[in-house]
């Protein structure tokens, strides 16, 4: 059972249409697709290698559907995740309410998962400040309280997108270095092949 080699499992969560897929699309394919909204069905997986201080880290990103229909099944996507990027739409205050739901869920079931709160569509509020419905400082207070990282991104312009994923990867490296080295990272042909390649979805 040798899975795709993935170091850190990252899961995208958040209300539908906040722009989770666009964020992944921008980060992985460096593009922003205009056009009618297309909801994600189930979840999509994509692996992306990233360099952190000379070391290659492969992020396995799960882009989940925001629809309520898949909520009951969302655990299979975030189980064992090292990082969760919980998104909300800066121009939609109800989407921030959903952030609290997901954070709660993660705190209850995935205590080792680091949380990144991400306000999306910052280009919209940049152009027209009156569109902003979620105050930065309110969210900052909330993020501090739950020890989460906070950022505001625009998938359209690309602002802060790479930085967010870079941060996720760096935190992963720092955090796993800090951990007791239980899993040999080097090549050991004799034993435990499976463990090294499967850190992200142990259960």
């Amino acid at each position: 059972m040798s899975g795709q080699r993935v170091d850190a499992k990252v899961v995208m969560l958040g209300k539908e249409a906040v722009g989770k897929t666009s964020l992944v699309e921008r980060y992985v394919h460096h593009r922003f697709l205009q056009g009618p909204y297309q909801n994600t069905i189930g979840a999509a997986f994509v692996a992306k290698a990233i360099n952190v201080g000379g070391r290659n880290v492969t992020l396995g990103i799960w882009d989940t559907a925001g629809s309520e229909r898949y909520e009951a099944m969302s655990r299979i996507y975030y189980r064992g995740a090292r990082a969760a990027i919980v998104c909300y739409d800066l121009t939609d205050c109800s989407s921030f309410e959903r952030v609290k739901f997901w954070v709660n869920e993660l705190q209850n079931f995935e205590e080792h998962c680091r949380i990144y709160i991400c306000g999306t569509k910052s280009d919209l509020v940049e152009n027209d400040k009156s569109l902003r419905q979620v105050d930065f400082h309110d969210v900052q207070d909330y993020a501090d309280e739950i020890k989460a990282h906070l950022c505001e991104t625009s998938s359209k312009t690309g602002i802060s997108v790479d930085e967010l994923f870079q941060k996720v990867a760096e935190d992963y490296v720092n955090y796993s270095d800090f951990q007791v080295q239980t899993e040999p990272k080097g090549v050991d042909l004799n034993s435990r092949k499976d463990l090294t390649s499967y850190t992200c979805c142990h259960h």
Partner: protein
Amino acid sequence: MASDVDKRSHWETAAASSLSVDPGNDRSDSPAPALIQGMEPGASQDEAMFVHAQSYEDLTGEVEGMEPASPGLEGQIENMEEITQDFSKLSTQLSVSSSHSDEQSREAPCECGDSPPPVIQEADGELHPQDDWYQHQKHVFVLSEAGKPVYSRYRSEEALSSTAGVMMALVSFLETEKNAIRSIHADGYTVVFVRRSPLVLVSVSHTRQSEQEIAQELLYIYYQIVSLVTLTQLHHLFQQRPSYDLRRLLSGSERITDNLLDSMDTDPSFLLASVRCLPLTSGLRDAATYCLQQAKAKSLVFSILMSAQQLVTLVRKKDQYLHPIDIHLLFNLVTSSSSFREGEAWTPVCLPKFNPSGFFHTYISYLSHKPELLLLMVSTDREDFFTVSNCKKKIMERLEKRGTWTPLKEALSNSLYDVAQVGIPELRHFLYKSKSSRLFTSPAMTAPYNTEVEQKRLVSLYQYLHGRAHCSSHPLTTIYHIGPQENILAWVTEAFELYVCFSPLGTKSSAVNGVSRLLRWIRKEEEKLFILSSSTY
């Protein structure tokens, strides 16, 4: 097996002589059509790939067996006379020419949807949808039993509350008398009701489709909804709260349902309740099948390769059979969303005909975009993504290593065949369905059917003839339809269904002649046009 072969050739001689084919011909290339299921061109050689069921099993009863077909074994060739008679029937009894004048006149303009807008009275003070909303040819509504809108094909659900109320009143009024409302016919409109607790599905249309066929389409919509949420959850939700607003749970899925309805207007797969098979040389298909077979995993139930809504190959777990409706829903799901275009998707899907109570997890990934080639793998274990993803890697590696990939891509990029290949001058288009394999084949819709309007018109003609042939009170086996723009011959036997479109200048006798030539051509090409053996892991 030996006896099977024997029967086939035995039979062919009889049939061929009745068709007065040149007796000097070799048997193998005088492939007259079999009238017995399991013997027709395109019939599977061993066992069928799909669950075998009547087209309208859903309408006649809830009971349905999951048993596979055992084609060819029942109804032996005891009476040759019958076959001979059937053949002569075709040539002499083509008397059911559908020449209803009203239908003829409706044929051309009605399909374009530009008939004058009907006026629907509504109580004042109600929200009125836009006028052009009324002009659509076929509306489809899904309601909960409490009368809450669940889906409307052309939206305006909010404005529909009073209409929904009327619909529910009609349904419940008849139910109090222990009756069920099936349809209302008035003013050129057909209103069809399908009740599948906890949902009520209603279609309001002015097309030439029969009530039965519209009901079948509504059932597809019902199954579509079940495939998103499972029947168990559906019952559970409405048991807990009869006034539950299902739209919340279905949000984002409208596109899938819309796409399904649109496809039903242009793709005859739904009409025939069978799967369109992509023509491929048997060597290439076998090689692709082998690659799927080799990449197995414990949790895998089905591995499917599809291209442009056509089945390339399918490998299944032993003793597990897919229903054509389920495969249509899968194909519709993947084509209605661009969300599968990149990366690998892993999504819960309920296959309602297989098991309406639970979710499978389906792995969806494009192996190639141009030409389109999609891999679908249905797994029972939702935790098994990486194992299944690894199967895809193995499949790709093997396809490339065996040198299958390049010729396969080449074959896919011109997979549609031209009707001219058949070599019958007046032949324009046809649908041929093998009943035992539940696969069908059909050439590309070339001129004059190369525009969407014309394609829809042709499909609606097929729908009309299919409806006439399968009418429960007066089923017909042969129909010769003379229209202003084409003549269509429909022929339904125990073993196959055939709809053949000829130029309007042709005669009935040339059509009959054409059909037997066409059937011989299909028999000759059957290895390419159909999947003759069904493979397991």
